[in-house]
């Protein structure tokens, strides 16, 4: 990574930390502790399944909320506050700014997820008293969740590069919801024919496929995740995020900062 991207990324991370974004960890810890204690009292045999399900879903939701609400301001806030003026009058290229912002927020989300992961494993240990070999799949699920964050961050950054924070939030959240049902959309596309079928197929492949990145239920039931899926999902997320970031750069390179 070139040094300017690195400095912009670390500054973005520092901004998130100083704006107390990581305080969400307190809410997460309280939620998970409460759930573990409660589930231990009311559930028989399925405590672990419930805790893994709840824990990973919480990791995903907290992260998505952070990715959207910080991501939508990454560019527009810099323009509104005019902090970008002193940045781009230096030897910083516009694509470097976008890349730095992306890595900064992605890094924040990775750190946040790692700390939450510690909480998930602690809750699993609390309810089951020991770790099983299949618990390693939780790491895979967490990895997929991080891949989701990477895509959502790129999308938020794309919308932030040309629209207002409110519209960016609406667009990003809508795409996240649609993407969660991407497999259903693809199934629907196969059932339709003619122009609607073509449109549905195009839409199904353009929206991000978050359903393929969601293995929470499978992991909670102790099911393994194939290495092919890990490879496929990794490539898919990286290529998708790179394409979205390229679009963001193309738009931002042409934008007048009035």
């Amino acid at each position, binding site marked *: 990574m070139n*040094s*300017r991207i690195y*400095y*912009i990324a670390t*500054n973005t991370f*520092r*901004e998130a930390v*100083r*704006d107390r974004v990581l305080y969400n960890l307190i809410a997460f810890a309280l939620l998970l502790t409460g759930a573990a204690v409660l589930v231990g009292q009311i559930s028989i045999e399925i405590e672990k399944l419930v805790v893994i399900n709840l824990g990973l879903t919480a990791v995903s939701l907290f992260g998505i909320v952070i990715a959207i609400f910080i991501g939508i301001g990454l560019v527009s806030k810099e323009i509104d*506050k*005019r*902090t*970008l*003026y*002193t*940045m*781009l*009058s*230096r*030897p*910083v*290229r516009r694509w470097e700014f976008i890349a730095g912002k992306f890595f900064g927020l992605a890094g924040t989300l990775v750190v946040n997820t790692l700390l939450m992961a510690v909480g998930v494993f602690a809750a699993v240990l609390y309810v089951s008293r020991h770790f099983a070999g299949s618990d390693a799949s939780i790491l895979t699920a967490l990895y997929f969740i991080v891949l989701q964050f990477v895509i959502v961050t790129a999308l938020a950054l794309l919308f932030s590069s040309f629209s207002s924070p409110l519209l960016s939030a609406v667009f990003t959240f809508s795409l996240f919801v649609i993407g969660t049902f991407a497999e259903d959309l693809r199934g629907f596309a196969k059932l339709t024919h003619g122009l609607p079928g073509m449109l549905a197929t195009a839409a199904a492949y353009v929206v991000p496929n978050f359903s393929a990145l969601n293995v929470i239920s499978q992991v909670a039931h102790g099911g393994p995740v194939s290495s092919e899926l890990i490879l496929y999902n990794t490539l898919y997320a990286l290529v998708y995020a790179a394409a979205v970031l390229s679009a963001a750069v193309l738009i931002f390179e*042409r934008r*007048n*900062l*009035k």
Partner: protein
Amino acid sequence: MAAIEVLALHKTYQVGFWRKRPKIALKPLTLSVEEGEIFGFLGPNGAGKTTTLKMLMGLVFPTGGTARILGMELDDPRMKAQIGFLPEHPYFYDYLTARELLKYYGHLSGVEAKQLSQKTDVMLERVGLKDAACVQLRKFSKGMLQRVGIAQAILHDPKVVFLDEPMSGLDPMGRREVRNLIEELKAEGKTVFFSTHILSDAEALCDRVAIIHLGELRRVGAIAELTENIHSKVEIVWQGTVAPAAFKTMEAECHTAGDTTRAVIPEETQEAALEALRHERLRLISVTPVRTSLEDYFMAQLADRTETQAPTSSGQDRRAACPTPDKGQALSNVGRA
């Protein structure tokens, strides 16, 4: 070699949501700034100063024309490493301390890490923020933010410094410090291009100025050149609350305070004015030459434009009419010799 060369640079925005219509922000602008020069870019609000600076900084793309700084294109990172920029009403990352901000910008400008700490400390001391180095910017006053802004613009020892309204928001002490700092930059051999609408600042500092109004360059030159064709004036003060009738024909601007009247008249009418005062036996207090200032020139330029656009509003209307006596009314006895 010219430090800044601007050739027919212009900008037209498309405004409106459905029906786009052109709005000219800057008409073709051509000017050149020599190395080591302090160049003032003057104009009222909305004249096109900030648009020009934004185009030079690569923040706004020109509709046409070209510009080169230190002989390099505007998007050349090597050029950007050698310039500093202070935007108008600067905002910075307010979660950072002054030292953190300067270090961050230093890294982005390519200052070597080994030298950065030392340069940052020197710069903080130079702009008078040594004691506030570890305070977050969200706790800074407007004047302190302006100082940080100047510090970040010159931290990396640039050859050309662009300052957009650098005195804005500063108290008299702060303005004097910024003036001194700009003079220091010139003494160090740097080129300073600064925009302002505070003419006294430009007059005190600039080797040359450009005057821009309604997106159009009006004149470029040294202040003495610009003001040489402005007719000199004299200020006459006498005791009394009315002026002789002859003053009416002299384009006099009169102001009465207490029992004295002050009139500013063209130099060539001085003898006639004194003769009129003698004739009316009014006691003369002083006759003082009025220095032709950049402000006179600037206002004349703007007045020309205003007259062209709105013939009913002329510079003459703004003058205070001389309180001449009504027909048959005797002059005030106060002040008679």
